[in-house]
C-alpha cells in the first residue's frame, strides 16, 4: 500500500494544444481556440504505489502519461518529482537523471520497437544512452538481468532476435525489459495489455505487479478498463474530458463510486457474472464531447442524468467524500 512520501506530484497540470486558425482568421484577428486535452489535474503517486488512471478516449489520460515522461510539454501547472520541479526541464542531456528514474511502457509493443534493431540493442539502448554501464560485459549482464526480470528466459536466446520474430506477449516483455533495465523508480504504463490476447494479459500484469512487490517501483497504470484497474491498482483516478472526476482506493471506486460518471462507467462495463447493484442510473446517452469545445460548468453536465442548475454554471471542485476519496460533483457534498 502507499507509502508516506510521494514520488510524483502533479499540480493543476494543464496541456492545451492551440488550434491554428486559417489565414483569414489570423488576418481578422479571430481568436484561435485550443484543445484542452488536460485541464487542471492534481494527482500524486506514492513510492511503490500503483495508481490507475482510468478514462475513455479523449479523456486526456495518454497526454498525462506523455507529460510525466517528458514527451509532451505542459502549458500550465507543475510536475514535481520527489519534490523537484521538473515542469520546464528539457533537452536529452538535462533530462538524463530524470529518465533514469522514470520510464514508460507502451500500448503497442510492435510499434514501440524499431523493426531494424535486435532485442539486445533495444534493451541496451537506455543503458548506453543514459551511460549506466562502463563496459560491454557489464552491459550484457544488465541486459540479460532485465530480460529475465521481464520473464524472457533464457535471456541469451533472445539477444539476436528481431521484434517480428517474437510473439505479441514476448514483444511487450521486451518493452518492459527496456524500461526496467535502468532500474527506474516510476514506470508509466500506457494501456500495456490492451493489445494482447486475453490469455497473455495476466502474465504481463504479473510481471508489473512483481516489479512493485520485489523492486518497490511505483506504477502509473493508464487504462480504459475499470475492472482491470481494480485488479492491479492501489488507487484509481477517473478522468473525464481532461479533469479528474473521482479519485479513491480501488475498492472505493469500484464498489462505492460517488461521481455519476464513474457510476455510468461501471454500469457500462460488461461483466461475466451479473452484478446486483447495477442500473441505479439510466445508461448514458451520446459520447464524450470534443476537448476543443468543453461544456461550461461541470463538463459532464450535458450527459449527466442527475444534473441540476448549479452544474450548468459552476465547475465543481474535488470534494472529499471519505478518507482518500474525492469526487468532483456538487451532489457529493
Amino acid at each position, binding site marked *: 500500500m502507499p507509502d508516506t512520501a510521494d514520488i510524483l506530484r502533479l499540480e493543476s497540470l494543464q496541456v492545451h494544444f492551440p488550434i491554428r486558425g486559417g489565414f483569414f482568421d489570423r488576418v481578422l484577428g479571430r481568436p484561435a481556440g485550443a484543445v484542452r486535452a488536460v485541464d487542471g489535474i492534481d494527482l500524486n503517486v506514492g513510492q511503490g504505489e500503483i495508481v490507475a488512471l482510468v478514462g*475513455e478516449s479523449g479523456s486526456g489520460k495518454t497526454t498525462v502519461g506523455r507529460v510525466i515522461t517528458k514527451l509532451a510539454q505542459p502549458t500550465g501547472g507543475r510536475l514535481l518529482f520527489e519534490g523537484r520541479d521538473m515542469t520546464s526541464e528539457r533537452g536529452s542531456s538535462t533530462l538524463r537523471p530524470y529518465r533514469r528514474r522514470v520510464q514508460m511502457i507502451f500500448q503497442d509493443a510492435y510499434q514501440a520497437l524499431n523493426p531494424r534493431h535486435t532485442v539486445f540493442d533495444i534493451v541496451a539502448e537506455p543503458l548506453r544512452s543514459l551511460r549506466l554501464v562502463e563496459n560491454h560485459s557489464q552491459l550484457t549482464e544488465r541486459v540479460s538481468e532485465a530480460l529475465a526480470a521481464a520473464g524472457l528466459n533464457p535471456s541469451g536466446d533472445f539477444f539476436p532476435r528481431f521484434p517480428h520474430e517474437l510473439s505479441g506477449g514476448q514483444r511487450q516483455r521486451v518493452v518492459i525489459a527496456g524500461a526496467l533495465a535502468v532500474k527506474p523508480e516510476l514506470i508509466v504504463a500506457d494501456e500495456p495489455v490492451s493489445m494482447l*490476447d*486475453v490469455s497473455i494479459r495476466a502474465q504481463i500484469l504479473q510481471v508489473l505487479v512483481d516489479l512493485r512487490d520485489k523492486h518497490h517501483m511505483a506504477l502509473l497504470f493508464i487504462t480504459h478498463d475499470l475492472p482491470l484497474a481494480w485488479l492491479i491498482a492501489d488507487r484509481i483516478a477517473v478522468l473525464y474530458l481532461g479533469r479528474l472526476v473521482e479519485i479513491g482506493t480501488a475498492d472505493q471506486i469500484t464498489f462505492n463510486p460517488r461521481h455519476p460518471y464513474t457510476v455510468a*462507467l461501471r454500469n457500462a462495463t*460488461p461483466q461475466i*457474472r451479473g452484478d446486483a447493484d447495477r442500473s441505479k442510473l439510466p445508461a448514458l446517452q451520446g*459520447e464524450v464531447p470534443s476537448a476543443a469545445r468543453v461544456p461550461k460548468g461541470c463538463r459532464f453536465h450535458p450527459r449527466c442524468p442527475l444534473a441540476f442548475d448549479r452544474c450548468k454554471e459552476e465547475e465543481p471542485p474535488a470534494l472529499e467524500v471519505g478518507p482518500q476519496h474525492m469526487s468532483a460533483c456538487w451532489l457529493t457534498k
Partner: protein
Amino acid sequence: MTEPSRSTALLLNVDGLSVDYKLKGLSSRAIDGVSFALRAGEAVALVGESGSGKTTTAMAIAGLLSPNARVSEGEVRYRGERLPINDDVAMRPHRWSETSVVFQGAMNALNPVHRITKQIAEPCILRLGLSRSEATVRARELLELVGIPADRGAAYPHELSGGMRQRVMIAMALACRPSIVIGDEPTTALDVITQAQILKLFGDLRSKLNLALILITHDLSVVAETCDRVMIMYAGRIVEDGTVADVFAQPKHPYTQLLIESIPNPANGKRMIRPIPGDPPNLVNRPSGCAFHSRCPSAMTVCATEVPSLDEVRRGRVACHLHRPLTQEDKVAIHA
C-alpha cells in the same frame, strides 16, 4: 419495415468445416473440422484469441474468405442448401443479401468522400434493384432503425463520432435484409460506454428483425450480456460450446476455465492474478494432440498424442479428454 415472423427454423448448418490458407507455397490450416448449427433469431458468440480461427469461420459463412483461402473439407448448408464457398461468383447472391458483416474499423470501411446516405443506398440499388430515390428512402429508414436521425445522413463519415460510424456500419449490414448478421469485433475499437450502447442496439435489432447474430470477439465479458450461446475456439477448433449461463457458471474445458479466471471480475471480490502459462500456438506448426495440452494444468499423456473430439456432454459440447472415458495409462498427468 414489416415484422418478420418469429421463427426458430434452422438457418445454418456447418459440418466439419476446414479452411486452408496458402502462403508462399505453404499451406496452413486455419480452422479444422468446425461443426455447429445456427437457428433464426439466435445469438451465438465465437470467442477466441488471435489465430484461433474465429474470424475465418465467420468469413467462410459470409462468403468473404480471402483469395488464398480454400475450404478443403466439410460443408456449410444455408436453409438446407450447400453454399459454394470456394466459388466466388456462385457465392454472390448469398453474400451480403443473406449473411452480412459489421466490421471492426468503421473508418476504413466507409468511403470518406461520400455522404452517409449515399453509401447506405448503394447496396440497396445494386442488390435489391431499387431506384435511387427508393434507395434513399430505404437508407433514411435504416438510419432511424439504428438510432441515427435520418437528417444526419447528409454528413460525411469524418463528421460522425466513432459510435455513430459503427451504427452506420450496422445500417449498411442490414440494407439487404439479411437473416444472419456477423459482428466481427464490432465494439473493440469503441469506448466502454459507447460499446454498451452498440451492444444494446444489436440486442434490440435482433428481437425486432428476428436476426441471427454471430458475434466474433476475444472479450468474454461482452458475450455474457449479448448472446445466448457461446462457442470457445482454440487453435482452429471449437473446444467448448454451450449456453452462456452454463459455460460461465460451470466451464468444462480447462482453457475456458482459465480464460474466465483471467478476466478481472470485481463481483467475485478476488484480487488475484492467475496467468495462463505459454503463448497461443501459431498455425504453421500446431501442437500435436490437443492444441492446448502444453499450457493445460491438467494435461495427461493422452492429450499430447490424441486430438479430443467435440463430444456432446450433458448441456453442451466439449473437446477435452477429461470428459471422455479413458484407460488408466492415458490418465498419467504431465504436470505432476
